[in-house]
């Protein structure tokens, strides 16, 4: 038991907290004007910051060392890691637990702090003062100190021991120095490469929202009420890119790993990040609007502040346990909800005071924007973005309203909507329609105000083009392609309007792009991002609105006729090797597969023997790759016993075939995860997953044992199959069994004849340990036919062999397959938004650097 390393880590946490406070105070003093010792305060604060940053890196290193060396005396290592966890997933342990995710957030802040100190001159002191105050609050979330007398716990430390976290375990009474041999393991959901990069990206996005906020607050405080915009804008854009990328990575992960059939589920945890992202995008537009024409400064201040506060609110929602029943994947309460609430309230009040103080000095230079100005339309676009965010916020906050009502003794009992997809989608579709139109129009007011004649000259081409293409789409019947449930007429009209608006945005932004790129390619970021956004709208519309279940069960019997309108037939049962028809495809379930180390493909589970160690299997057949033998019969291979893949062949009428391998990950401690396998086509995806977990052989209903005493070449009937006893061999080596010199094994070769005349060899073993006078049967099972045979005894006196036979239902899976048209448009659009925003960020950063180097940071 190593207590030192944890003490070292905890010490780092405490140092980082106090160093953050000192740095914040030091920068506060350094930011004061007319003070003689500004310079020395600045040096003091930088040293405090350096100590803080070093101790943050110390915490990360210590925690990683504890996880890496499997020190299960520490609760964090025990509850999130295990002996068999590969190193690259050990990083994911950081964000499985709450303490680790706060640590990740703090870590990003430390990195951002270094950059902020480096790039700023005048802004350093006031910005860092605000920044480090936020950081101190975050550090307090993992400090894990109980205040004496008050008996209040502050923060939750990642370095607590098992003994401290679960003192009631009986084992600690008997053996106080007990250390668990293996950890609890990482949630199977997180064992995915997207889960290695998605949380850090998202947390970097969270961390980035604080930078524009800190600039804005510093500006309010120092009276630089408009000057903060220039340095804050590139950061806001970077935040928009990173947070947006993080959200879409999460969406892609959900699409690929979870089985809810899509990339977005309107789960409160997803909504909690979507809300601040929309506000951040709105804030960016207002900041640009102010830079261009000096309007909407107050609105920009409010939006930048809101984006940060909503990130805090998102943290509060997902971390405080308030979501309770309404979300499947929020974190459990660590008793920190009060602290999180306090954090949220403190910064709301602080921001409100600073904004109100500076309010009167933020008069708009221009009183009223003309209807023909770019700013006017941008402002309306911002209003729609905010309303879209507000709509999601209200519904997602229902559990908070329940809680508040509960304080007053009212039982609201409001639950999330029973069909969130339609509730959220219809509203958001309406907003998307206006946002698409505005994004197409606003871009035309490029340099100056124009009048109605010029406006029409610019707009008629994209309008005509989008109307033509929309008509074409309608005539081609793309919108009727859905053959399942009939789409409501109003919904269809909504779809048509959204397609027309998105196409308009695409065409008009292409025109802008062509015009701008001739002068300066650096200015094309906006046009690219808007084209991408409109493509995302179209991609979402088709992949979600026209997603179609293709695995319709047309043969199954119906249990109950009275519920006919509620019944669905979405899932299909496939017996192994029995083809089923599905739309224009034929499906055949081929059997279970596993992955082994050192081989790229899947290995048939029937070709391996399990061993005592679940992570090792013995091969029963040579594995070939391109006719070259990679592994030999009898080799011991490494595998991950949690994963089973189910090979399903899809045979098209035209003859070409593809195979999908949907997966089931079974973790004995944390339950099972069903993951789809996706076949990508240019125009659509075929997405398919198992919709029920197949039972393990020992969980099935096996028939009572029947015993047969038969001679060579005798025939018996098992499960209605003919079974012939072919011959017998004596072996002196059996894979996985240690045989002594006089020991041997008798193997019986039986042949089962399947329904379609296919022959299935099956060979049970009887191991004879001659020296010990013992014997043991190694039964063999054919899952496909549902037959288990073991050779029990040999009767030399009558030349008879005694077999015991058990049968059960044939191996089957239940599968659901969904077609998602147009999903690639969504992914391409996402990439374009990312590229466009990144280009805009670099452009704005160059502007900031140019002014700074002229010594005009605050001008």
């Amino acid at each position, binding site marked *: 038991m190593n207590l030192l390393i944890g003490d070292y880590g905890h010490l780092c946490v405490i140092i980082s907290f106090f160093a953050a406070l000192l740095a914040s105070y030091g920068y506060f003093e350094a930011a004061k004007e007319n003070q003689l010792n500004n310079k020395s305060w600045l040096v003091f604060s930088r040293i405090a910051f350096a100590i803080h940053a070093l101790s943050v890196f110390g915490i990360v290193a210590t925690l990683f060392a504890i996880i890496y060396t499997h020190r299960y005396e520490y609760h964090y290592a025990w509850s999130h890691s295990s002996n068999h966890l590969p190193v690259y997933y050990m990083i994911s342990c950081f964000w499985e637990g709450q303490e680790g995710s706060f640590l990740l957030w703090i870590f990003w802040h430390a990195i951002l702090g270094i950059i902020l100190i480096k790039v700023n001159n005048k802004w350093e002191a006031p910005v860092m003062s605000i920044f480090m105050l936020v950081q101190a609050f975050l550090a307090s979330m993992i400090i894990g100190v109980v205040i004496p007398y008050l008996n209040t716990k502050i923060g939750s430390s990642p370095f607590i021991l098992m003994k401290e976290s*679960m003192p009631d375990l009986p084992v600690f009474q008997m053996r106080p120095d007990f250390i668990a041999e293996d950890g609890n393991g990482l949630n199977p959901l997180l064992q995915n490469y997207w889960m290695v990069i998605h949380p850090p990206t998202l947390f970097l996005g969270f961390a980035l929202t604080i930078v524009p906020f800190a600039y804005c607050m510093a500006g309010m405080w120092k009276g630089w009420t408009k000057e903060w915009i220039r340095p804050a804008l590139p950061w806001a854009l970077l935040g928009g890119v990173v947070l947006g990328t993080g959200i879409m990575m999460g969406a892609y992960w959900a699409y690929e790993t979870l089985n809810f059939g899509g990339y977005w589920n309107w789960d409160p945890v997803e909504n909690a990040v979507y809300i601040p992202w929309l506000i951040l995008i709105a804030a960016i537009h207002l900041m640009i609007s102010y830079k261009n024409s000096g309007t909407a400064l107050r609105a920009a201040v409010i939006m930048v502040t809101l984006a940060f506060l909503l990130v805090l609110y998102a943290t509060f929602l997902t971390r405080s346990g308030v979501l309770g029943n309404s979300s499947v994947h929020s974190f459990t309460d660590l008793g920190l909800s009060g602290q999180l609430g306090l954090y949220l309230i403190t910064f709301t009040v602080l921001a409100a005071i600073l904004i109100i103080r500076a309010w009167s000095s933020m008069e708009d230079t221009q009183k009223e924007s003309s209807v023909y100005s770019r700013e006017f339309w941008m402002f309306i676009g911002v209003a729609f973005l905010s309303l879209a965010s507000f709509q999601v916020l209200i*519904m997602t906050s229902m559990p908070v309203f329940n809680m508040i009502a509960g304080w007053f003794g009212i039982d609201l009992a409001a639950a999330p909507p029973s069909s969130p997809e339609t*509730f959220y989608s219809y509203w958001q579709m309406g907003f998307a329609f206006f946002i698409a139109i505005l994004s197409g129009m606003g871009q035309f007011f490029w340099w100056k105000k124009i009048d109605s004649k010029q406006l029409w000259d610019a707009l008629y081409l994209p309008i005509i083009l989008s109307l033509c293409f929309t008509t074409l789409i309608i005539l081609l019947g793309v919108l009727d392609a859905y053959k399942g449930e009939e789409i409501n007429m109003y919904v269809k009209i909504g779809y048509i309007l959204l397609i027309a608006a998105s196409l308009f945005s695409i065409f008009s932004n292409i025109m802008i792009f062509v015009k701008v790129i001739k002068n300066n390619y650096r200015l094309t970021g906006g046009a690219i991002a808007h084209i991408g956004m409109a493509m995302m709208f179209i991609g979402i519309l088709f992949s979600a609105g026209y997603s179609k279940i293709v695995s319709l069960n047309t043969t199954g019997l119906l*249990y109950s006729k009275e519920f006919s309108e509620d019944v669905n037939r979405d899932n299909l049962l496939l017996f192994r090797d029995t083809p089923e028809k599905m739309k224009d495809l034929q499906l055949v379930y081929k059997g279970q597969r596993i992955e082994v180390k050192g081989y790229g493909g899947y290995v048939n589970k029937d070709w391996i023997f399990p061993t005592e160690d679940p992570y090792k299997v013995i091969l029963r057949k040579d594995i070939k790759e391109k006719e070259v033998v990679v592994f030999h019969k009898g080799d011991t291979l490494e595998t991950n016993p949690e994963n089973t893949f189910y090979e399903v062949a899809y045979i098209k009428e035209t003859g070409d075939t593809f195979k999908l391998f949907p997966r089931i990950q079974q973790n004995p401690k944390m339950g*099972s995860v069903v993951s789809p396998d996706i076949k990508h086509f240019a125009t659509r995806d075929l997405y398919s997953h198992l919709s029920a977990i197949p039972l393990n052989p020992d969980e099935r209903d096996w028939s009572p044992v029947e015993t047969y005493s038969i001679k060579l070449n005798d025939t018996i009937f098992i499960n209605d199959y003919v079974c012939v006893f072919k011959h017998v061999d004596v072996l002196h080596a059996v894979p996985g069994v240690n045989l002594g010199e006089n020991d041997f094994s008798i193997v019986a070769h039986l042949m089962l004849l399947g329904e379609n005349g296919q022959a299935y060899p099956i060979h049970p073993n009887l191991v004879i340990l001659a020296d010990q006078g013992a014997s043991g049967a190694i039964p063999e099972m054919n899952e496909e036919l549902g037959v288990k045979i073991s050779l029990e005894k040999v009767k030399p006196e009558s030349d008879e062999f005694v077999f015991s036979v058990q049968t059960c239902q044939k191996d089957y899976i239940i599968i659901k397959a969904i077609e998602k048209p147009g999903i690639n448009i969504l992914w391409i659009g996402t990439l374009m938004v990312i590229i466009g925003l990144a280009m805009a960020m670099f452009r704005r950063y160059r502007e900031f650097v140019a002014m700074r180097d002229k010594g005009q940071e605050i001008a």
Partner: protein
Amino acid sequence: MKASYIILLVVIAVAVAIIFSSTGSASEYVDFAQAEKLAQEGDNEMVHVVGSLVKDASGQYVGMSYNPGIDPNHFEFILKDTKGREQKVLYFQPKPQDFEKAEQIVIIGHAKAGVFVANKILMKCPSKYEDKEIKI
């Protein structure tokens, strides 16, 4: 009237519409008795019922049946709501994974003809995040 005031009015109007639509679309947490009453009154809105599974003396789950060989899209079980009332629930989907492990089950659907037809099932498995058992 200035354009900005018109915009402000429109924004407020939409915001009010959002609030009304949210309170209107929000479902409700009810028990089986309330769900039945709502259905009898002709209210077709789906509701949430929170409950747990029923076990008999030998630890077997009562009334749970899933026979994929006959119909893979039919699963039925008995749920005991927070008031202690037991009710048969039909779910026209395959049996959810780890169903028996769930400590608490939330079903979303409506009462109908003496049973509860669930469209969605949410399961709370605290073990997913915090496992209090330890292997020695």
